[in-house]
């Protein structure tokens, strides 16, 4: 277990310069989740355009892993069909559980987070934004 496995350059880059991050108003926030253990806090807003997830914005205070995961996720799923988003969520969570799903290669930068699986205490940091995204899809499909 090397530190570089965890904090790869691409992760640090997303941590320092997160994408799709914004301060969210309460009335547009679809999901508000917190990990009481470490104080990570994430809020998300998004819209549906037909079957596409659009205008995904994230507000996140958390550790480097959580922040980078949220940023890379937002980049990876923005303007994607909901079905593709769902499959990315599944793939990502499987990887973090230490499994090796077949479609792992469509994750792009996100494979950098694979190393987190080696650090069980940090897995929650990486998966929290994805669970929040799941909840966003849920909210949007109910609203539809």
């Amino acid at each position, binding site marked *: 277990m090397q530190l570089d496995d965890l904090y790869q350059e691409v992760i640090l880059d997303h941590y320092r310069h997160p994408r799709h991050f914004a301060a969210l108003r309460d009335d547009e926030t679809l999901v508000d989740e917190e990990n009481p253990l470490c104080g990570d806090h994430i809020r998300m807003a998004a819209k549906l355009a037909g079957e596409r997830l659009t205008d995904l914005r994230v507000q996140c205070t958390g550790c*480097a892993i*959580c922040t980078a995961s949220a940023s890379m996720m937002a980049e990876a799923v923005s303007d994607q069909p909901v079905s593709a988003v769902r499959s990315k969520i599944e793939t990502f969570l499987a990887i973090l559980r230490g499994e090796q799903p077949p479609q792992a290669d469509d994750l792009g930068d996100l494979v950098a987070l694979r190393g987190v699986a080696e650090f069980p205490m940090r897995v929650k940091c990486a998966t929290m934004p994805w669970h929040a995204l799941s909840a966003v899809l849920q909210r949007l499909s109910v609203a539809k």
Partner: protein
Amino acid sequence: MSVLTSKEPAEIQALSPQTVRADFPALDRIFADQQRLVYLDNAATTQKPRAVLEATRRYYEESAGNVHRAVHRLAAEATELYEAARQRIAKFIGAPSTRSMVFTHGATEGFNLVAYGWARKFLKAGDEILVTEMEHHSNFVPWQRAAQERGAVVRIAPILEDGTLDRVAFARLLTPRVKLVAVTHASNVLGTVNPVAELIAAAHAIGALALVDAAQSAPHLPLDVRALDADFLAFSGHKMLGPTGIGVLYARETLLEAMDPFLTGGEMISKVFDDHATWADIPQKFEAGTPHIAGAIGLGAAVDYLERLGRERVRQHEQQLTAYALERLGDLPGLRIFGRAPERVGVISFALDGVHPHDVAQFCDQTGVAIRAGHLCAQPLMHRLDVPALSRASLYLYNATDDVDRLVEALQAAQRFFHAT
């Protein structure tokens, strides 16, 4: 407080951490990268000296009988070892007799025992329990729940900017409605040592009882329940060189006698009839079922070890080391220390600008330095300090200035690592 720098190591070495370290097999651990383990998470749990491991091994390999029940030699030996441990621990905290010493599985169970056996029996609607803003969840949530059930109220005495108790507010909140003052002796976040003897005297003056959370003081400070005049006091073995799963609740005999039993079953009964039961004498009345015999024996050995080193010497060593750590950490730009009480233990919580506490701890760990990060089981205090989480380094008798130096290096490296663009 006098501060020693690394150029004056003589005084700090009075305890000889090198010799002490040799008693702790875990501290020999070398990580793959050739780094020696630097263990600075002692407020969470401590390493164990050989003497403790030996004592429990001996019980299991030679005298593994159950206690109090059988006449055969293994059982007699087990009972003797178990009760001798109770006696030594009683002496260690100045308890007037072993009848006031209940073995629990930790500080948490101790507080719950009082919450179930005393608070639920004696609290009335409108009564109050007074705690402080720096309590660990274990000395807070049990009172919240007992109060809810009884229609009583938990009041929280605030802290001041330096991390000490706001004595004025405390005095204001200490009205005759208060039936129990539950306060930590030493904070597991701020390091603050509270003036518990004075707080207890104040509680007694208005007719309230006083409970002391000694989880962070028993391992570090000389402790005397009679001098403190405490009514209840609880701590955990695993935080003071002892095994996991064992702790002690001290309580005044008259209180234990008046209280309802908590856990029921074997050992704690006198007679059991189809429709009712009567209870054994204290302290057995509160020790239902087969106790953690090896744990009690191990804790007895831990207490012996601490007394052999000398508790004043341990305290002096830790004070000097804490002063050194506060100075070195205080010199780091971008590092903010929470808790500046003049009377304190070696628990130092801090925030590093722009690096999340979890990343700080993770980075330190990769250099072999074990520190803790999170809410530190004190969410109300985190709210008060307005932080989501903190990093915490906590010292013990086997730590020395080189450990602090390694921590400082790791923190500097973390700053470089996470801040580089």
